């Protein structure tokens, strides 16, 4: 076991070529590290480049400068043991729930029967046992999220990257999914990077909340969240500890949100 951080970004910068020929800097001089088993939430104003951070770690996009390390190795291609939950549910509409979850093990060379066996366990774990033979269009948004969650977790990732996975859900379903995520995550010792623009969600879930600046994103501040686990998100929200952490972080986040807001007013 390595004792160092499992994810490390050192002065990582990512620039994209814009549609009009200009260069857009999504992430600038970003430095952060995540320990094994740590749950880190990244919050920032909408559109500041939080998602780009995840694609640097996942190897889907190489950094323009700086370096991204996973388990101490530079990221070239997609590292092993990574799970990635996208903002839009990336379920394959032509596969049943069970086969969607079995896709990961199948890609990794398991036989169809073995993969389905493994998938069956996870379909049950996310509470979709009765719906294993359904196709995604027959499910609700929350259920599709569960499919995506099971499809990601079935590979038993050491690193779980989550890009506003629950932002499209209604409030009640979201709270349910957050609890579900905490329940499934506890005891896996997976490191989680959870990107969100919802500070409530970030504090309720994470050990550490990183506040990003307005675009181009870089780390503004980092806050430890010492709330006891196991947590129930709906209840923990009511505690005074939660409220005080919230106030502290919101002070920092608000400036960035305001900045983004002003810009959009100027632009429009």
């Amino acid at each position, binding site marked *: 076991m390595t004792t160092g951080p499992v994810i490390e970004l050192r002065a990582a910068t990512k620039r994209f070529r814009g549609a009009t020929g200009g260069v857009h800097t999504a992430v600038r001089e970003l430095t952060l590290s995540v320990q094994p088993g740590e749950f880190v939430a990244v919050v920032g104003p909408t559109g500041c480049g939080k998602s780009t951070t995840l694609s640097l770690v996942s190897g*889907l996009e190489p950094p323009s400068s700086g370096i991204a390390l996973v388990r101490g190795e530079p990221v070239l291609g*997609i590292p092993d043991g990574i799970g990635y939950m996208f903002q839009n549910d990336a379920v394959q509409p032509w596969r049943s729930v069970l086969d969607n979850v079995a896709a990961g093990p199948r890609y990794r060379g398991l036989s169809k029967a073995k993969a389905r066996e493994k998938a069956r366990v996870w379909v049950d774990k996310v509470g979709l046992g009765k719906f294993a033979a359904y196709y995604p269009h027959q499910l609700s948004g929350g259920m599709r999220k569960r499919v995506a969650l099971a499809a990601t977790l079935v590979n038993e990732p050491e690193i779980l990257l989550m890009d506003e996975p629950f932002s499209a859900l209604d409030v009640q379903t979201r709270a349910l999914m957050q609890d579900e995520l905490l329940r499934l995550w506890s005891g896996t010792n997976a490191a989680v990077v959870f990107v969100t623009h919802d500070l409530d969600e970030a504090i309720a879930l994470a050990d550490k909340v990183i506040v990003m600046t307005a675009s181009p994103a870089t780390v503004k501040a980092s806050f430890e969240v010492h709330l006891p686990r196991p947590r129930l998100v709906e209840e923990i929200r009511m505690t005074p500890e939660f409220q005080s952490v919230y106030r502290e972080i919101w002070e920092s986040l608000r400036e960035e949100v305001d900045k983004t807001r002003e810009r959009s007013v100027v632009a429009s």
Partner: protein
Amino acid sequence: MSAVSLPAEAIPARELTSAARAQRNRKLKIWSIRAALVVVWLGSWELAATYWIDPFFYSKPSQVWDKLVDWFTVGTSQGSIWTNIAATMEEAVAGFLLGALAGIVLGVLLGRSPLLSDICAPFIKAVNAVPRIVLASLFVIWFGLGMQSKIATAFILVFFAVFFNAFQGAREVDRNLINNARVLGASRLQVLTTIVLPSATSWILASLHSAFGFALIGAVVGEVVGAETGLGLLIARSQGNFDTPGIYAGMIVITVLALLAEAILTALEKRLLKWRPTAAHEQGAQI
């Protein structure tokens, strides 16, 4: 989500039967009006050709019917009608299969490779602009009067119909799905077979419907241009003999074949796309 179907018990039986009756009545109405339209059309044609216009040029339904009966009982000037049908179908099916296969393979390949598609774009546009049906004459010179020239004509028509759809389908694959599969551990080949092909399938299947029509057109036109057997030859001979009913009869036989093929393709499509939500127009009429 569109309409959620309730369990049948939850709906009063009376409402169900009245809904079923309404649907039956609607179907009956549609079919009777269709039948009436055909009767009016054929009847007015028959009357006009009997009392007014010259049946030598325009023929009339009864003559066409006699011709069809003659073909199927006695045989045609070119031998049994069934051998002619078999020949045309063989050409159409062969051209269809080869053209569809080539169209899918090249379409997906170019759809997934921006470099290749950029290189090939002007050539494909140019070839697509050629009136391809003219190639039938060329193919007769290249491949002779036998089956090959017809298969080639059907092939070229089918290929382009399928190619453009496969190309578009392969290009419009959701990036999210591809990224997701890659993170889940899919190789490039696996991404192609498990993500790109299935999501292009609906595009490709849509093109196959019209493509079989094109295959038949290709085969028949090839036969009209020059052949030893086939429905196109029958039509060409009928034309040479000023046998108008023969031309109509040939048309009808070809139409029936095309409809049969269409039914088979629809069944195939239903099977392959069973994962897709039923489109609004396929759902039952509203209660």
